Structure formats: structure tokens, C-alpha cells
């Protein structure tokens, strides 16, 4: 039985989970750091408890404090979301030992998949193809650098350095030439150490021209393990996904079926429970290789939800409560695309940006979904990840989905903080994106010197004119005068305007 869920996360994904709890009739508890006290997710919870401390380590990563709150609030289940503690087997174990249901797979499944080397061995034994690669076990800097150099000759170039306990592109470096190896290795180790407290790295061959394709799986305690088809997430910048879609444009029934079987085999090999994602590289030849398994809900889960009609978070709650998953036979219908809206300056090498969300007007209309943790008036701070929102569209075909995404991005107005909206909009016109021939190196290939908007000069005239007229007309003082005029024409009691002829 699950009746009260603590959501050990913040922002957009906390909102997603808290809303699912409300829909499922479950009581919810949010935890928040002081700098999040006015955030949307705090409002969406039935109960919200302040985390003591300032840094992320003292708050959202503080296992002991979060467990204490779970116990004192009487939560009987805990949803970790993604990031933060979601893939920490020790936390999953502590939660379970406290008699609280962990909404996710078992600690041992997280452990096996979280350690990239163990995951590779487990996958190879389960008959899932893996990429040539080697792990550097030593923590010592000098020894590690020697070992990395030796391993590089066996793995071959171009190669990829990854943090052993990494994710989200942190501690990851692509190395094209042997002479760049040492600097890249030092920098990857440093970033890995800062982000995960573990400087160990993993080397693997970089398969060029490949697509990043991943399979969503669901497994319940009643012996059912299914896959929900694939997502393609090839469009990445510094290994951070920016544009995700389902289905994959070059997918065939044969590959989907083989990949789906491999993903289910991967889940079975670790006795998986709940929602998970098995990531593959799909080479132009049609061969695919296991990359990693994410033992949690993923950022891009909505595209799968839109094409399959399955509410993945709701299924997670159901499965954690020991119920069988509710979805029947699955069919993929139409096409869904997600873009990640970041507070960043795409024209300045994607530097994270901060500022107020003076205006935040998302697009509306058919086939549009917005998953966000912010609203107008919020402040974007450097404290957390700069992702503001996920804009997801669905349409009957891929072409129509792209058209809808272009329209939606054109309508999206965010003022006060620089965002990547225009970059995402221009992505929708890139020939590789239009043709569906994207691969994981596309952004670097297209904009080796960095991206800058292609801007008709006339629009700049329009903007200058708008600024000059707005300043002349005193529009920045308008907010107060508009509030005053609302006294007369604004909100009126609904009982005065309602037509009282009830049937």
C-alpha cells in the first residue's frame, strides 16, 4: 500500500510527480531548500517541509535529513525524480530499510546499472551488444593518467572519456587525437570529482555518425516486463540532450523489435522494477550497442507518453504500490517532439543565464504540452540546473509535429532572462532535423564556431522601434496604471455576470 508520497526533488520533475500523486488520490510531501520557498512545486504539494542548510549537499542531497522528514511526516513512499539522489543505491537502501517504499528499482539493480563497468559485464552476459571500452579503476591522478594512456591504445580513437559514476554530460570529454588525451583526462576527472565525488573515468570508442536511441521499459511485481518503444535523442550539445522525439525517424520494425528485446533482457538481468530506460547507440549500419541504463524516470519521458498514451509516472506509483501496471497492448500513434528550454545564451557559447522571468507566456493550442517548474514573476538563479521547461508537441506525423513545434516556439515569449528558444526554433529548420538524419555530433558539426541567430535586419528595426515607443509611451510604468484601471473593468464578481438561467 502506498498512500503518502514524499517527492525528494525540486522544479519541473517535482511538479510532474506531485501532480500525478494528486491525480492518483495520494497525499504528497514536498521538501524544499530556503531559496525554493516560493517555487511552484512547493505549492503543488499537500505538505511542504523546509530543508535546513544552504548548499545542495546540505539540502536536496542530504539523505539523513530527507529520511527524517519522510519518517516525521509519515510518508510511506519516496519518489526520487531524476538527478539528485535518484540513482544512489545507498539512499534507496536506507529508504527501504526505514520501511518506506522506494519508487524505483531495487538498490542492487541501481548498483549494477550505476557502475558502468558492472553494467557492461551484466549486459554482455545477458547477450546485449556493448561498445569497446575500458574502465580506469584507480583514484590516484598520476596512476590514472598512465592507465588512461595505455587503455586509449586498446580502445582506439576517436574515444570518449566518461565519469564512471556520471550522467548529464558532466565529466565527459570526446578526444579526437592522442595528443589531446591528457588535458581532456585531467579536466574530465576534475569535473567528475566535483560533481560526483568520484574521479574515476571510463574510456570507450566514439562511434561516429550514430544515433542515440533509447527504449523505455516498465516492469511490475507480477512478472510483466514491457517496452514502450524508442525515443531518439541524437541532438545533443556537450552530451546534454536538447531535442528528443518518438518514434526514431529511421527505425524499422526489425530494429525496434530487436532493441526492445535487448532492453527487456537488460531489465530482466537485474530483476528490474518500475520505469527505466535502456540507452543504445544505433550505428548507420543498423547495429546497436548498449550505452547505459538509467534506473529512474527520464527528462524526456513525455514524448513516449504522448505516442503510447501511457502515463509513466502514474504507472510508477501503481507498480510501487504492488499493483500490476494498467496499460494493455501498446500501439505507437503519431509523432512527438520535446525541446528543452534552458536559461542560457546560445549565442555566447550557451552560457547559463540568470534574471527575472518578467514575462513567461508559453504557447497554447492543440497538441501542446508544457512541463515546467516556473511561472511568470519567478527569478532564475545560478543555484540549480538552468532548465526552465520542456515543451512537447504531438501531431499525427513527424512533419506536422515539426510544424507545430515551430509555431509553438514562435509563440513562446520569455522576457527578462535569456533563453535558448530561438536556437531551438532554428534547429527545427536544420536539414538533418527536417530529414530525420540527425546524429550525436550534429550540433558541433553545424556550428563549430558557436551558434548565432540568423536575424532579418528589418526585425531589428522593429525591435528598436518597439523599445523607443515603449520608453516614450512610459509602458514600464503601465503595470501600476493597468492595475488601477482594473478596479473598474477588471475582475468582477462572477455572480454579477453569470447568466442565471440554469437548466
Amino acid at each position, binding site marked *: 500500500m502506498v498512500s503518502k508520497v514524499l517527492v525528494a526533488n525540486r522544479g519541473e520533475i517535482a511538479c510532474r510527480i506531485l501532480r500525478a500523486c494528486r491525480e492518483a488520490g495520494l497525499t504528497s510531501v514536498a521538501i524544499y531548500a530556503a531559496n525554493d520557498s516560493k517555487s511552484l512545486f512547493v505549492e503543488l504539494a499537500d505538505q511542504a517541509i523546509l530543508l535546513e542548510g544552504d548548499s545542495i549537499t546540505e539540502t536536496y542531497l542530504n539523505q539523513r535529513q530527507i529520511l527524517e522528514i519522510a519518517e516525521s511526516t509519515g510518508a510511506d513512499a519516496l519518489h526520487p525524480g531524476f538527478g539528485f539522489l535518484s540513482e544512489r543505491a545507498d539512499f534507496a537502501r536506507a529508504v527501504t530499510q526505514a520501511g518506506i517504499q522506494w519508487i524505483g528499482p531495487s538498490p542492487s539493480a541501481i548498483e549494477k546499472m550505476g557502475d558502468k563497468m558492472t553494467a557492461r559485464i551484466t549486459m554482455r552476459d545477458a547477450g546485449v551488444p556493448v561498445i569497446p571500452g575500458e574502465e580506469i579503476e584507480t583514484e590516484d591522478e598520476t596512476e590514472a593518467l598512465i592507465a588512461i594512456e595505455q587503455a586509449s591504445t586498446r580502445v582506439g580513437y576517436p574515444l570518449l572519456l566518461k565519469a564512471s559514476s556520471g550522467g548529464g554530460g*558532466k565529466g565527459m570529454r570526446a578526444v579526437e587525437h592522442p595528443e589531446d588525451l591528457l588535458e581532456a583526462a585531467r*579536466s574530465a576527472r*576534475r*569535473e567528475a570529482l*566535483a*560533481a560526483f565525488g568520484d574521479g574515476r573515468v571510463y574510456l570507450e570508442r566514439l562511434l561516429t555518425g550514430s544515433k542515440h536511441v533509447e527504449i523505455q521499459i516498465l516492469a511490475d511485481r507480477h512478472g510483466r516486463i514491457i517496452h514502450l518503444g524508442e525515443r531518439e535523442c541524437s541532438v545533443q550539445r*556537450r552530451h546534454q540532450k536538447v531535442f528528443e522525439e518518438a518514434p526514431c525517424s529511421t527505425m524499422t520494425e526489425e530494429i525496434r523489435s530487436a532493441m526492445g528485446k535487448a532492453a527487456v533482457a537488460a531489465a530482466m538481468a537485474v530483476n528490474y522494477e518500475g520505469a527505466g530506460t535502456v540507452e543504445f547507440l544505433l550505428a548507420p549500419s543498423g547495429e546497436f550497442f548498449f550505452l547505459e541504463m538509467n534506473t529512474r524516470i527520464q527528462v524526456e519521458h513525455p514524448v513516449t507518453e504522448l505516442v503510447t498514451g501511457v502515463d509513466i509516472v502514474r504507472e510508477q506509483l501503481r507498480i510501487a504500490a504492488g499493483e500490476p501496471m494498467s496499460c494493455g497492448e501498446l500501439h505507437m500513434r503519431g509523432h512527438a517532439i520535446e525541446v528543452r528550454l534552458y536559461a542560457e545564451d546560445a549565442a*555566447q557559447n550557451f*552560457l*547559463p*543565464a*540568470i*534574471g*527575472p522571468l*518578467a*514575462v513567461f*507566456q508559453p504557447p497554447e493550442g492543440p497538441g501542446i504540452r508544457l512541463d515546467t517548474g516556473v511561472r511568470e514573476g519567478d527569478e532564475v538563479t*545560478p543555484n540549480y*540546473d*538552468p532548465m526552465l521547461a520542456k515543451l512537447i508537441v504531438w501531431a499525427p506525423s513527424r512533419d506536422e509535429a515539426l510544424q507545430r513545434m515551430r509555431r509553438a*516556439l*514562435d509563440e513562446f*515569449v*520569455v*522576457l*527578462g532572462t*535569456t*533563453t535558448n*528558444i*530561438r536556437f531551438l*526554433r532554428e534547429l527545427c529548420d536544420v536539414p538533418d532535423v527536417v530529414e530525420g538524419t540527425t546524429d550525436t555530433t550534429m550540433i558541433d558539426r553545424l556550428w563549430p564556431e558557436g551558434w548565432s*541567430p540568423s*536575424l532579418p535586419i*528589418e*526585425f*531589428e*528595426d*522593429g*525591435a*528598436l*522601434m*518597439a*523599445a*523607443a*515607443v*515603449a*520608453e*516614450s*509611451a512610459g*509602458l*514600464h510604468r*503601465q503595470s501600476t496604471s*493597468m492595475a488601477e484601471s482594473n478596479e473598474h473593468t477588471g475582475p468582477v464578481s462572477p455572480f454579477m455576470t453569470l447568466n442565471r438561467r440554469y437548466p
Partner: protein
Amino acid sequence: MQHQFRTEQGSVEVIVAKQGNVWHLGEHQATVESDGRLRIHLASGASGLATVAKVGDTWWIHFEGHTFCLERIEPGASQSGEEGGLTAPMPGKVIDVLVKVGQAVEAGQTLMVLEAMKMEHRILASTSGHIKGIHFAAGEQVQQGSVLLEIDEDED
């Protein structure tokens, strides 16, 4: 009315005139809608609604799917010049300093590594020259806009 704005290309002077309810800028026209947005009619015949918001001295404009940031220069304000200083693009922590004072550097060379938003950012030499000053050491926090290092530009 005359206004000066700072754009990426430099400062631009804009003179708009009002006749009745219509504002004019050369052949372009604009009217203020009741909700505070602006209807812009461009000389080419294209027209669209602009959403505007002022944050500090900067006007943020959304027009035709593009977002513009135009900082208004107060009349009489002095222009702050770009010197050889390299500033922090955002708040963060210095994690590595790769040069010493007096060292010769080439344009594009990595001078410092910052960590912000959990990602590494490299501070590159904007020009070739000699390092004149280093204002932060590894481990120190920096604010957005802090001058991190200074370069004496080579004079050829």
C-alpha cells in the same frame, strides 16, 4: 522623442514621433494596444505584435519569434569602455588558474577554468599579450562581471 540604446553592434540612436495614436520611425509605424503590447507595421508591409518588458535599464522585446535585449543609455551617461580585462560570464568558482603574471599568452589560450552551474567554463585570452594581473586564485568564488585577469595587449 529621441532615445539611445546599446545593441551588440554598438549604440544606436532612435527618434520616434507621434501623430495621433500612431508612432513613426521613418517608414515604420507602431501603435500601443490596450494590453500594453505594440502593433508594429514595418515599411516592407510586414506587421506583428511586440511584447515588451523593462528590467532595470533594459527593454526586452519579443517580436516575430525573436527576443531582443536593448539597454537604454540614459542621456548624458558616460560610456564604459572595453579594456583588456577578462570578466566572469556568470557567478561561479575558480577551479584552475593556468597562467602566471608576466606570462606571454596567445589569443584563444585558456587562462582560467571556472565552474558554474556544475559545468566547467574556460576563460580564454581575448588577445595576444602578457598577463598583467590575476585577481582570483583557485577555490575562490567570483561574481558575474568580476574582472578575473588582465592582459597587456602586444603592440605590433
